Structures are given as structure tokens and as C-alpha cells.
């Protein structure tokens, strides 16, 4: 996993969104997240977020525009990006989210 972390907006008090690419397409021109674990990452994230009771919206999308770096995941409103994700990386992402949420409340 590679992460491009961006600062959490200081005035944000809403519900953050984690958007995971699940695009499944012909890979002759470019790889796609959907064939390299995207849907499994979504399932693992939803489960982890529910287990931790985090107020986070996990959404899917069919392209984040970074196909060569996938599977990709984006967090709003910070704009942080996680590339080359695997299911095993999900706990680390959820930890980071948890920490960001706690900092935002503090």
C-alpha cells in the first residue's frame, strides 16, 4: 500500500467518505481495481467501520483516474489517497480514519 496523506480540513465536522474503485474492465490498455481486489476491499472496509462504530460512509466508484496505481481508495474531505491497496491494508486505513476523526472532534 502507498499513501498520499493530506490534511484534514480544520472546520470539517461532517461524515467522511471513503470511496473505493471497483471498476471491472478489459485490461488490455490499463489495469482496473475491480479485478485486483476492489470489491473485497469495500466489504472489508464496511465490516471494519461497522465493528469500530465509526461514522464513515463507504462508497464505491468505477474510476478514480489512477488505474495504473490501483486498487485505489480516496478519502473525502481530506483528499488522502491510498494506492496498491489490499484487504490486509484495511485495518491501517481504518486506524488512520479513527485517529483523524478523534483529532477533528478534539
Amino acid at each position, binding site marked *: 500500500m502507498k499513501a498520499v496523506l493530506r490534511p484534514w480540513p480544520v472546520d470539517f465536522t461532517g461524515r467522511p467518505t471513503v470511496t473505493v474503485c471497483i471498476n471491472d*474492465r478489459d485490461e*488490455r490498455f*490499463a489495469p482496473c481495481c475491480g479485478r485486483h481486489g476492489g470489491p473485497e476491499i469495500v466489504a472489508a472496509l464496511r465490516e471494519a467501520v461497522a465493528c469500530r462504530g465509526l461514522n464513515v460512509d463507504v*462508497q*464505491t*466508484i*468505477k474510476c478514480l483516474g489512477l488505474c495504473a496505481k490501483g486498487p485505489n481508495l480516496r478519502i*473525502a474531505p481530506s483528499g488522502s489517497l491510498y494506492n496498491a491497496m489490499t484487504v490486509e491494508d484495511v485495518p491501517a486505513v481504518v486506524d488512520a480514519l479513527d485517529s483523524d476523526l478523534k483529532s477533528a472532534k478534539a
Partner: protein
Amino acid sequence: MVAVLEKLPKPLAREEFLKEMVRRIDGKRHSDYPMVNLIRAGKATRQQIGYLGVLFYHFTKVTPQVLSTIHSRCDDRRIRRRIMDTLIDEDTELRCGSKGHDELALDFGTRFTGLSEDEVESFPVPQSIKDMVAYRFKVAREMPVTVALGNSGIASESHAPQMCRLISDGLREHYGVNDEDQESWIVHIDGDEDHSETAFKVVLDKVTTAEDQAKMLWCIDEYLFHWGNFWKECEKGRIILRK
């Protein structure tokens, strides 16, 4: 046409040319316009956003033809290949996006407004947007290839990711738009970030004569004028929504 094609007495040095291009863009980036910031703040009306969606489709749908016009005039194999890659990005689902970018724009236009695809397609496009489209084709047909590429890469795309991010965050936070329904904006936030650097590099490497540099500066002024008209037109919100 409103910009004046100036004559440069001699070619500008690389750094000077870069500084001059950036100076002309400053204050006229997409994110400098109220429309973009109104959406981010949740203060734009749904009519304004719906109107933006429909007009953005009519802007986006000609991009493949603009690109293929430039491609057909390009003698440099390496640049032609780069244009072809961008054309595949724009016009297909094979490299970037789950559909051609015009289809993604159409998806946003129809889903946000509730209009059908035919209604969006036949929507009466205002003259200012027709002029913008005509300008894009004129540049593609008449300007040196590298200037034509710089027209979109520098004058518009180099500052598009910030605009897309502001719009996307506003749509999600204030208007309840799911990310699947706004892929048209999201796909450009991080995907286009390196376009700016590439566009500037190509122009700085290839646009080196006084005559071509003057044309490049003219394009930046003229395209930004059209973009200004685009954003001001969106603010009018001249659309009747179905939802």
C-alpha cells in the same frame, strides 16, 4: 475573439515564458469563479448545478473531435502517440474512467437534473458556449500543434483538478450526490494532477519561436475569456429540473 495577438520582439527565455503564462492564468483559474465556490459552500441552487451539468456535457462532448483534429495535423510520432493516449482516455472506457468522458458528463447531467439523455442532448445551448466550442475547433485546426495542445493542457486542464475537487466535495457534502453519480468530476481530481506538469513541459520544450509563443499567450487569454463566460453562464441556472 477578444484577446489581442501581440508581437514579441524576440523569443522569451524558458523561465520568462513560463512566468508569463502563469501570470496570465493567475486570478482566472476555474476555482477563482464564484460558481465553483458556491457549490463547495452549498450555496449554489440546484438549477445552477443542473445547468452546469448540461453545459459541461456540451463542452465535453466535442473534446474527442478536437483532439483527433490536432492528431491528424501532427507530424511528430511521439506527440501523436501521446494525443492518441489522451483520445483513448477521453473517448473510451479503456484507460481512464468507466465510460467515455462525454458519457460520464451526460450521466451527471441526466442524474442531477432528471432530464433524459435526449433532453440534455437537444438542450438549447447559449451562444457563449457555442462560441467556446467554435474557438476550440479553430485552435485545433489553425494553431501549431504544440500550441493547440497547450491550449487545453495549460489554459484549462492545468487548474482543473482543484475545480473538480471543490465541486465534488460540495456535491457530496451539501447536495447528497453519491460518488458513483459524479464520476465525471472525481475522475479528474487525482487523475489529471500530472497533466499540468506535462503540458507545461511540452510547451516550454517545443514552443520556442517568438511567433509561436505569442500565439500560445493569445490562446491562454482567449480560452480563459471563454471559460469566464462559461462559469458566469452557469450562475444563471437557466434550466427546469425534473427532480
